[in-house]
């Protein structure tokens, strides 16, 4: 329906948000492009970083998708106690601060981790988790759940009637139904994970490093923070943007549909159950792989919680403030864009997907650096950039709800003369409380766990909780780091829960 005929909300908030996003994505890109040292070209180390970035992303994405196939198939066709909890938990890594997950993985796979303790007891040489396989391990840890959820959606989207038909024909379900679905869904999932791994910073910062395991994002950070070589940092930022933009365009073309939909609660009834032990093994191993590191965070974190340095608590307070501001900002931006509607908004809403924290951060750094000490802007910058980076995800949850209200009730509102603030307050806000709360929770958790922009900008006086935790790890104060990690995990989940819960209260409709 042509909305222009009876537009009921003013357009300026949407336009303002659009402008802000453009400045933060394309504006910062222009800043880095202008400052980049083009004449020197890329050094051998830069090429190595590019190769490593792409290679680890390909391997991480490939492994995540391959491993996700048996797990999602098992979840699609088995009904067991705790299935719903497990599927919900599969959504958790999205909220999990990267640095916390890395610490959890280290306590399992690291030098002093339980795996090496076991291997040592059996007389084997210890495994090292640093470098290429450490980065891939962490990326699979993060993205296996995502890939599983996405492929599970594909599995559950196969109509039950088809399985019934296949059963009556005694036809091979795998070749007839499942393989075509995987061929349709698989490439999109692979690309989404690939894109996420391309922009990986915190994992490479903690598990990578050195000439053989440096991502472009990490190289940007090192050029800026250690060498203060603005020209090279800017050049690398341009490289990173091209990589991401290329991948993002392909992703967007292949996966138009909603990646975070609902409807996981049904089990398709089918007649070819396969071997229960295979499914049990797939689910069991995946659960162990995901849950043990999380359990270790709690286990190792609890003892040190009592005597955390005061500075960590102060950093936690800072993080809460930043996350709250970031979430508020992100939700306001998403709402004003959604109300604006239209094609330009669809583009502006996905633009941040092609941006990465370090590219935007570097651009912002270059813009503010001549005028003010960037460290003084560390916290506002972190809030702003994180709000922008979270925007595509929040928009995906809010925009369809807003569009639905326009379709269902736009004419009623217009006929009643509901416009502007009254329309927003009476019709829109109460009806989108759920996606809005979910979006706010997402944005808050993402900002809470951010270790990208903040690392680029902050001095000692602007330390957030993830940064404080990283510095504790760097100083080998592992017990305090584990306690800080537990605190960060708890705060992230708590902020998400409060927002999400807030949206569900009194939402009877």
């Amino acid at each position: 329906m042509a909305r222009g005929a009876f537009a009921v909300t003013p357009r300026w908030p949407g336009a303002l948000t659009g402008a802000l996003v453009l400045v933060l994505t394309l504006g910062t890109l222009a800043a880095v492009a202008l400052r980049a040292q083009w004449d020197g070209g890329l050094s051998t180390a830069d090429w190595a970083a590019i190769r490593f970035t792409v290679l680890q992303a390909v391997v991480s994405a490939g492994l995540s998708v391959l491993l996700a196939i048996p797990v999602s198939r098992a979840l699609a066709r088995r009904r067991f106690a705790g299935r719903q909890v497990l599927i919900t938990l599969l959504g958790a890594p999205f909220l999990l601060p990267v640095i916390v997950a890395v610490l959890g993985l280290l306590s399992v796979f690291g030098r002093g981790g339980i795996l090496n303790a076991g291997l040592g007891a059996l007389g084997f040489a210890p495994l090292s988790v640093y470098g290429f396989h450490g980065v891939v391990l962490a990326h699979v840890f993060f993205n296996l759940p995502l890939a599983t959820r996405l492929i599970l959606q594909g599995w559950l989207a196969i109509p039950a009637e088809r399985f019934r038909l296949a059963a009556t024909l005694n036809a091979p379900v795998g070749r007839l139904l499942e393989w075509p679905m995987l061929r349709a869904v698989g490439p999109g999932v692979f690309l989404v994970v690939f894109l996420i791994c391309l922009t990986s910073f915190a994992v490479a910062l903690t598990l990578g490093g050195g000439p053989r395991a440096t991502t472009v994002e990490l190289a940007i950070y090192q050029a800026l923070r250690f060498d203060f070589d603005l020209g090279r940092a800017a050049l690398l930022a341009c490289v990173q943007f091209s990589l991401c933009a290329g991948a993002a365009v392909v992703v967007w073309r292949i996966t138009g549909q909603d990646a975070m939909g609902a409807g996981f609660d049904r089990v398709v009834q089918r007649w070819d159950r396969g071997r229960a032990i295979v499914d049990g093994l797939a689910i069991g191993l995946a659960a162990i792989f995901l849950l043990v590191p999380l359990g270790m965070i709690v286990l190792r974190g609890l003892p040190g919680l009592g005597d955390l340095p005061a500075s960590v608590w102060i950093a936690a307070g800072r993080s809460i403030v930043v996350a709250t501001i970031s979430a508020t900002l992100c939700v306001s931006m998403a709402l004003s864009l959604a109300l604006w509607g239209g094609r330009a908004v669809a583009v502006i809403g996905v633009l941040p997907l092609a941006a990465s924290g370090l590219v935007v951060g570097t651009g912002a750094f270059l813009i503010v650096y001549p005028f003010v000490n960037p460290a003084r802007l560390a916290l506002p910058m972190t809030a702003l950039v994180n709000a922008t980076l979270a925007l595509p995800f929040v928009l995906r949850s809010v925009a369809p709800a807003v569009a639905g209200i326009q379709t269902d009730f736009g004419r009623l509102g217009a006929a009643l003369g509901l416009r502007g603030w009254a329309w927003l307050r009476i019709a829109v806000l109460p009806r989108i409380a759920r996606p809005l709360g979910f979006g706010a929770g997402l944005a808050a958790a993402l900002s809470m766990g951010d270790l990208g922009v903040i690392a680029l900008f902050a001095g000692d006086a602007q330390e957030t909780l993830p940064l404080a935790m990283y510095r504790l790890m760097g100083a080998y104060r592992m017990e305090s780091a584990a306690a800080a990690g537990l605190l960060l995990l708890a705060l992230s989940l708590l902020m998400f829960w409060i927002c999400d819960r807030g949206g569900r209260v009194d939402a009877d409709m």
Partner: protein
Amino acid sequence: MLTCDGLRLAQDDFALRADLRLPKGRVTALIGPSGAGKSTLLSALAGFLAPVAGHIAWDGVDLTDLSPGARPISILFQDNNLFPHLTVAQNVGLALRPTLRLSNTEKAQVAAVLDAVGLTGLGGRKPGALSGGQQSRAALARVLLGDRPVVLLDEPFAALGPGLKAEMLDLVRLKLAGPERLVVMVTHDPDDAKRIADDVVVVADGHAAAPVATAALFDHPPQALADYLGKRVG
């Protein structure tokens, strides 16, 4: 009097012409085959569809460029006539004040109009807690309270059973129709028209015909209506 002067509507490959004079104090039914443009015409009258050419006026005042809320017109759609998250009283109160902040006098008015449509004491419920017929009554209550001179009904009772639908139509006749008001209803059922309409406008073949008194029309149906009725029976 509601007038359509040289009105031309177009949507994709669909087009409709209308030159109409609909006097106040009457209930007028728009009847015709589905897809003929009955609802489209109603949409244009309410202000949701801008005409390609021509004018719409009420008592000589041109409405063509007014937004839906600014027209002297209330409309009930096929569905979504109530906000599900607001109480019945709030939904009805929107007719008085699109801010939901009602004075005590206004609250009394809401209660009175709920009494009038047979929803006494149900103002605190949400639409989901009402039956289909009660929801229709609540929507009618809002139109009644809005007290605008033109009321358009785009088959709002189509989802109700025949008995309930007849009850609602009678309620429209009893409460909404009046000497100062024009009620225009879309229907595909001749019995609806016969039940409460004074006049009938046949919409067919891209054209809205001039209103004809209901009894006279069904006694001597024009070709377009005869075709429609014949197909319906056969």
